[in-house]
């Protein structure tokens, strides 16, 4: 066992070393379109930490918390990079906007014409209201018909969570506004459909990522294009049943659903939304995470996919196993004429121990292209032997907790069994310098970190997760180019840990008073090339 572990670690060390060196030096193989000034290469001092990648796809690090940007040397890219959007600017440069979930902050990075990060600043800091912002959607004139781009980002801060709209080009700490008609949901993302999907309507789907009460699938419909302010709000319920139980919905069946109205979203306080959803028999999923629509045409955009993260069976509100434990991916097909009607089906069910998704460790973010669905894990694990797993008749599947966070790829329309691992990243386990840096034994304040250990003894298994995966082919002029945020949760710098101090990157007052930011987490963003679309 010990020998195996050692040789495995050595292998990893070698792999990490290859990646560190290899990525920055390897020539760019992505197909060049003549106009593009973009060079896709390793821009960061931080390795990619890719341990598995689909053949033909290349990974580089765009930016990380360790990078010093020439025009803003004091800027530290925060931890927990989550929701993100990229804009191509009229002068040929790029603006990358990114949520830093546990910093309660939003960063704005300027990339030069070649795609090199040159400047960073905070568009929102924790001083701007202490909003924990998760995923986000950049709405643009081209796709959504809005007059100018806006970053729509969702608060995940308990009862008071609301959806925000921010001007990505605005002055820092100046443009954040609340979309009061979106209601209060501990939302992961609010995804606006393209302007042609339902002409003269603004249709936005919101995923309620409510850990305590379970999540609803919420729909906002505004009259006119780009109307986020006085539309109506709906929640999804089954048409064939009043059951709210997620797991009454099973694989290999298609369920008719409808979106039913929650009246007066503007005037109700937060506590009434869950009560209304219950009154309306809305489906109560585990936690509705990220949502995306199929690309290619207005009609395609009515085909949506979303992830649901699970919760332990035998504990809390999921003690009767009414909601998923390991995560699910659903497909929502909206009616061509009426966005309030549709069908729902389970595409992948992580709880099916013999199915194609039997390796799922809680799927979270999702990215859908013309032909593919990319499903990203946030491996919330379960502790074998803990009380939340005891008392019911099911076998706890410890074995699947044996991998780092993956992105799975599925080609739409192909057999489900073709689901495959597309990418895997995780902390280095070399028992040496890399491990000490990226998976320290101590938090900045000196407290022990206590990383999860896999059933086969590997430290820090599944500790990392992904944030947004976004298609930037159009912006970069390089088909198949994507950005992926990586939340490298074990990377903690500052205090007792040497290196650049990652604590309080936005300069807000949050960290001095509240725990999470004091952990000084770092994160990074990957560029992927040649991603099948």
């Amino acid at each position: 066992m010990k020998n195996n572990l050692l040789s495995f670690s050595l292998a990893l060390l070698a792999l990490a070393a290859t990646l560190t060196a290899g990525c920055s030096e390897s020539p760019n193989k992505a197909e060049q379109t003549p106009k593009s000034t973009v060079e896709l290469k390793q821009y960061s001092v931080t390795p990619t930490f890719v341990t598995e990648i689909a053949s033909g796809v290349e990974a580089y690090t765009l930016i990380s918390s360790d990078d010093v940007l020439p025009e803003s040397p004091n800027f530290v890219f925060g931890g927990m990079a989550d929701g993100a959007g990229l804009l191509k600017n009229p002068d040929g440069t790029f603006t990358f906007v990114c949520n830093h979930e546990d910093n309660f902050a939003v960063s704005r990075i300027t990339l030069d014409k070649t795609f090199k990060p040159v400047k960073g600043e905070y568009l929102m800091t924790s001083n701007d209201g202490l909003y924990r912002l998760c995923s986000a959607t950049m709405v643009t004139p081209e796709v959504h018909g809005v007059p100018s781009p806006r970053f729509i980002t969702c608060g995940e801060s308990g009862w008071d969570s609301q959806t925000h709209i921010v001007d990505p080009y605005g002055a820092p700490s100046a443009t954040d506004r609340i979309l009061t008609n979106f209601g209060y949901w501990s939302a992961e993302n609010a995804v606006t459909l393209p302007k042609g999907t339902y002409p003269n309507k603004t249709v936005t789907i919101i995923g309620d990522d409510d850990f305590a009460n379970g999540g609803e699938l919420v729909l906002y419909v505004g009259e006119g294009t780009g109307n986020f302010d006085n539309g109506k709000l709906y929640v999804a319920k089954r048409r064939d049943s009043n059951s709210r139980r997620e797991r009454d919905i099973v694989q290999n069946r298609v369920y008719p659903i409808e979106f039913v109205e929650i009246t007066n979203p503007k005037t109700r306080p937060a506590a009434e939304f869950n009560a209304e959803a219950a009154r309306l028999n809305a489906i109560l999923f585990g936690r509705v995470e990220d949502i995306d629509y199929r690309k290619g045409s207005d009609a395609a955009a009515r085909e949506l996919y979303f992830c649901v993260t699970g919760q332990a069976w035998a504990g809390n509100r999921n003690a009767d196993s009414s909601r998923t434990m390991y995560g699910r991916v659903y497909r929502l097909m909206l009616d061509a004429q009426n966005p309030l009607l549709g069908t729902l089906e389970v595409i992948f069910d992580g709880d099916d121990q013999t199915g194609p998704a039997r390796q799922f460790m809680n799927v979270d973010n999702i990215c859908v292209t013309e032909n593919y669905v990319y499903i990203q894990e946030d491996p919330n694990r379960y502790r074998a032997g803990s009380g939340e797993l005891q008392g019911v008749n099911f076998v706890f599947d410890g074995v699947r907790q044996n991998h780092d966070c993956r992105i799975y790829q599925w080609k739409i329309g192909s057999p489900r069994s073709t689901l495959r691992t597309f990418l895997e990243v995780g902390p280095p386990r070399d028992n040496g310098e890399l491990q000490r840096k990226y998976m320290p034994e101590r938090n900045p304040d000196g407290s022990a970190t206590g990383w999860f250990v896999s059933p086969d003894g590997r430290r820090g298994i599944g500790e990392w997760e992904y944030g947004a995966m976004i298609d930037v082919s159009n912006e970069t002029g390089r088909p198949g180019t994507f950005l992926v945020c990586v939340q490298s949760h074990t990377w903690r710098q500052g205090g007792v840990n040497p290196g650049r101090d990652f604590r309080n990157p936005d300069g807000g007052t949050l960290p001095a008073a509240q725990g999470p930011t004091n952990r000084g987490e770092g994160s990074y963003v990957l560029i992927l090339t040649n991603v099948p679309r």
Partner: protein
Amino acid sequence: MKTPFVVVIALFVAFGLSRCSPSKPEATQEGDFIANEKVKALFARNLNDFVKRLEELDSSLRRAQDDSQSKAALQRAFKQARLAYKRLEFLTEYYAPSTSEELNGPALAKVGEEYKIEQPTGFQALEEMMFPEAEMSKLSEMMAQTNLMRALCKRFNGLILQKPLTDNRVFDAMRLEIARVISLGISGFDSPVANHSIPEARAAIEGVREAFEPYGSDLIQRNPARMRQLDSLFNETLAYLARHSDDFNAFDRLEFIARFANPLSSTLLDAQLDLGIEPIQTHRPFSPTARTMFDEGAISPLPYAPDYATSLNPAQVELGRLLFYDPILSENKKRACASCHQPDKAFTDGLPRALTIAGDSKKLRNTPTILNAGFQASSSYDQKTVFLEDRVTFVVHSPDEMRSSLDKVAELLSQSEEYVQKFKAAFPESEKPISAQNIKVAIATYMRSLTSLNSRFDQYMRGDFSKMNDEEKRGFNLFMGKAKCGTCHFLPLFNGTVPPTFMETEAEVIGVPKEAKWKNAVIDPDIGKMAINGMELNKHMFKTPTVRNAELTAPYMHNGVYKTLDEVMRFYNVGGGAGIGIELPNQTLPSDSLGLSKQEIQSVIAFIKTLTDTTGKSSKPSALPKFSDATLNARKIGGEL
């Protein structure tokens, strides 16, 4: 004596209808509301003032860096800031509950989503550093907290200022604030060290009064007598609070609630109805149409039920009662729910720990009463489950308790024609009436029907002032004041469910010893909630149980270590575990002595005995359903221990 069936019907009527009954969506709210013009303007003004007070607090902290003599000024600035907050509280708690908690929640770290530890923020975190004496070494932390609160204030822009306020919700918020003052405000819940609760209660009521004032001219037109009545009630309430603001311990809480706060809440509802403002319709524990928290039926157990069991259907209650007393639920057909939850002991067993089905007296925890168990947002000592239905499943499946399974029980029950008929009647829409699902629903629904909120104390609160003697009254005032019992065993349920929203049920680390020793005691090895979530912060943490019927539920604590209420009071009086030699870094009970005299302890106990009420809940069924298998018909009603 009433038959059980009558009791059941009465309950059903008292709690109104279930969520399944047809209910219409709220009509579109349009037009101009006084709330949106006047009350919001008032809020904006008071918010400005609050932000200024925070800035002043920040300035005092900065000054204190240079001048260590300015401690008193710090405390003054803190008090002014929280008084300013209290005027806003009725609206912030209503429209911004999370932000309110971050501004003024308990100074305790807690386990948040995905097992993240959340550090306390806001006033109470500051209070710990500033009182009884400001810790000058923590000035930078105090400044950080103050700045954080200023940042939090920005949220009110989106949460309240941008939101159209409506009259029905503002009235709801005002009345919830009165309930908040009654249950939390005057108990010292959010001013545990500064003891500034009474002036703060006054500021809170002033905030409510200010918000009501814009409605005054309309009320004078519609019902001048009501306006006069309400005016004088506001005046008297505020005057009473002003008169008694100096001495936290001496404040007569019973008089305040019974003579002023309850009538104020009640009259405000009358005024609302006079004004033609319909109470809101929403599914929550504290009914928006109840006059006070102490009214019959004011608090419903139904919102704590899962989606599939949202009524107190009498046929289900009666079926659940039969199942509760039927030992058919256990593997050996000898143990029923009632074996341990014995009706004559307020549904407990009188033992330190429940016996396992194999007779082990050291393994399980103390049997809790199930009277009023429905009023909780989580069940079991370690809060493993939310719903009573799931508790039924776990008990039936536990190898130590029933050692059976719901499916097995369903199969057995199907062999009884009598049960088949009763399940059909109770679950007429089920394709398969006898099922694991319906068994747990029936038993849990029966448990939810076991509400008993008609004790002498309740009757007193409803206006029969003959129901408590002087010692009991003193005991209540101690319970809610000096003895601090009411800061965890909250009014009016006296369990850990936090008023006035009743959405959350708290758990605490108090340091219960293994044996009843008063020196060098050893902590009971049960790690409580930590066994469920693995969090050190929750080690030895247990859900706060109800004090109602404590007269009948000895012995006490999760391990039954204390035989009498005197012992329990002695434990709390010395600061819990910390006072008997148990050092827990995460003890949530304040570790200082309460300083209660023997006489005061007796008064508290006398008061606790006014909370006894088991009326109409204790009768056993006269017979259990018959089986064709004669051996099964020897089942003992209520089982054996």
